[in-house]
């Protein structure tokens, strides 16, 4: 009964794959369409490496390998950003690691791979900020209060207690608790030398315009 239907479907999929497998590999927009259609009918092509979709279209390997690369990038940068990284920076770093001859990777591809990683229990998650996402890769508890402060900080890369009081209308104590939690988790750095009041900076939000990666030699030269 079902096995016959399954065989027929398998043949159909094989035919499709022989004509369009390259399209999936090369075209991110096509991948998005494909994923959306699967979701509409209640099918998850990435659920298992043993699924037809994975075996015949090769979608699985693309995303599972991306998952490995994402884990490695997040681990390498955790000491600096506390386990938070923007989707843009993650994309840059992953592309760098993939090398010249690998396929390009879109932000949609990264989002789908990350959603699959959640099930491994090490705290992978997505936090929407300013039109993009922060990718969390540590099991730190971040509730709505923390998320809202992260979104506020996204504009300038830092935030102060006064700004939180003004924009969100919170009491000082509530603002302090949230900022302290981010400090403890290593996701925020405190600048007590800022003019006015202390500033809480988020390394995850540093961009090329605020910061540059320099070698130890360049650093030596820069200091008088």
């Amino acid at each position, binding site marked *: 009964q*079902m096995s016959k*239907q*399954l065989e027929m*479907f398998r043949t*159909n*999929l094989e035919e499709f794959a022989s*004509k*369009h497998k390259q399209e999936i590999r090369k075209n*991110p927009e*096509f991948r998005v369409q494909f994923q959306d*259609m*699967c979701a*509409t*009918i*209640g*099918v*998850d092509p*990435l*659920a*298992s*490496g*043993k*699924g*037809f*979709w*994975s*075996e015949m279209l090769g979608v*699985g*390997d693309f995303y*599972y*390998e991306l*998952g*490995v690369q994402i*884990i*490695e990038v997040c681990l390498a940068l955790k000491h600096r950003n506390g386990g938070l990284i923007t989707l*843009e920076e993650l*994309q*840059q770093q992953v*592309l*760098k690691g*993939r090398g*010249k001859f690998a396929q*390009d*990777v*879109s932000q949609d591809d990264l989002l789908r791979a990350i959603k*699959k*990683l959640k*099930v*491994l*229990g*090490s705290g992978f998650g997505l936090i929407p900020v300013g039109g993009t996402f922060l990718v969390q890769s*540590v*099991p730190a508890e971040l509730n709505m209060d923390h998320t809202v402060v992260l979104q506020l900080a996204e504009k300038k890369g830092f935030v102060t207690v006064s700004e939180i009081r003004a924009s969100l209308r919170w009491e000082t104590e509530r603002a302090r608790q949230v900022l*302290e939690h981010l*400090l*403890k988790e290593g996701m925020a750095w*405190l600048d007590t030398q800022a003019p006015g009041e202390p500033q809480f900076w988020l390394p995850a939000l540093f*961009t*090329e315009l605020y910061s*540059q990666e320099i070698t130890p030699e360049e650093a030596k030269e820069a200091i008088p």
Partner: protein
Amino acid sequence: MDRFSWTTGLLELGETLVIQQRGVRLSDGEEKVKFDSGVLLLSTHRLIWRDQKNHECCIAVPLSQIVFIEEQAAGIGKSAKIVVHLHPASSNKESGPFQSSKYSYIKLSFKEHGQIEFYRRLSEEITQRRWESMPTGQAMQVSKDSQAGRIRAVGIVGIERKLEEKRKETDKNISEAFEDLSKLMEKAKEMVELSKSIANKIKEKQGDITEDETIRFKSYLLSMGIANPVTRETYGSGTQYHMQLAKQLAGILQTPLEERGGIMSLTEVYCLVNRARGLELLSPEDLVNACKMLESLKLPLRLRIFDSGVMVIELQSHNEEEMVAAALETVSEKGSLTADEFAKLVGMSVLLAKERLLLAEKMGHLCRDDSVEGLRFYPNLFLTQS
């Protein structure tokens, strides 16, 4: 390339950064120029290129100068490119690296990828023309439209025609692919409906369905990627495939576990196993489902889930509670330790070090000192010295 001007690279008031990409080379039409390796930044107003080695060398062109853009796919030994066709430079343009150029277009070579996203964002910015509604501090380059219009007619019409043809060809290929995809999805939808009706039958005839048939049904669902509606409670999400996988994992992970003190996080396992496989990788769900079966198959490894949700694989012979006693000794020797310090001392990952210290705290052996300087653990003197 004569449309570019020198710039400081700092954004003006009212100008926002949209996207940036490292490893981009500029070419003047078909000719290479000395702008070989730089960061390309797209703002709401300009396209800026800054040399990666010499940050002082920074040039920009206003987006208003762009006529249109096209993509050039990567080839063997060649990076993907975006070709940017430009209006002629206006006479009041600020000084730049080139006084004149025989080409009316430039090429951006993406040596480190990133071309797809950049192209998408650049197209958006050109369409939205946000620079018109967001005046900046600097005097804007005003392209004299009437003059530009006349010059435009000559070389650009031919290019536009070629682009139109290419677009039609691509459209045809894509629509065939989408048509085939839609047909395929229709068939897949039928499979989903069929599986729902079978699942319902199973639910009703709880006792009448044999274990064999249920197992076969579950493997069908796995092949199609359909979530398991009914049988999850009774037999778990695992299938024959996952059972085999669990046995394989027990073989593969024995040595790595012994090398790492008997315990590894599931993300570590995922990376290790998939890197070793190279092809036909495991999905995260495959790994979790297989690990859930380890204990019931009486294999020498087990899955353990900490309170924080962190999942690990341990050797059966590994006793985390015993390790806690050793951890207590280490902390006592040093007076106090943070998770980072402990991880470095013992040679563990910070994630697992933290879990061990938390477990020790839960068992009453350690006390925490939670401050902005970090989470530090001390031996629990309340217990030992009362």
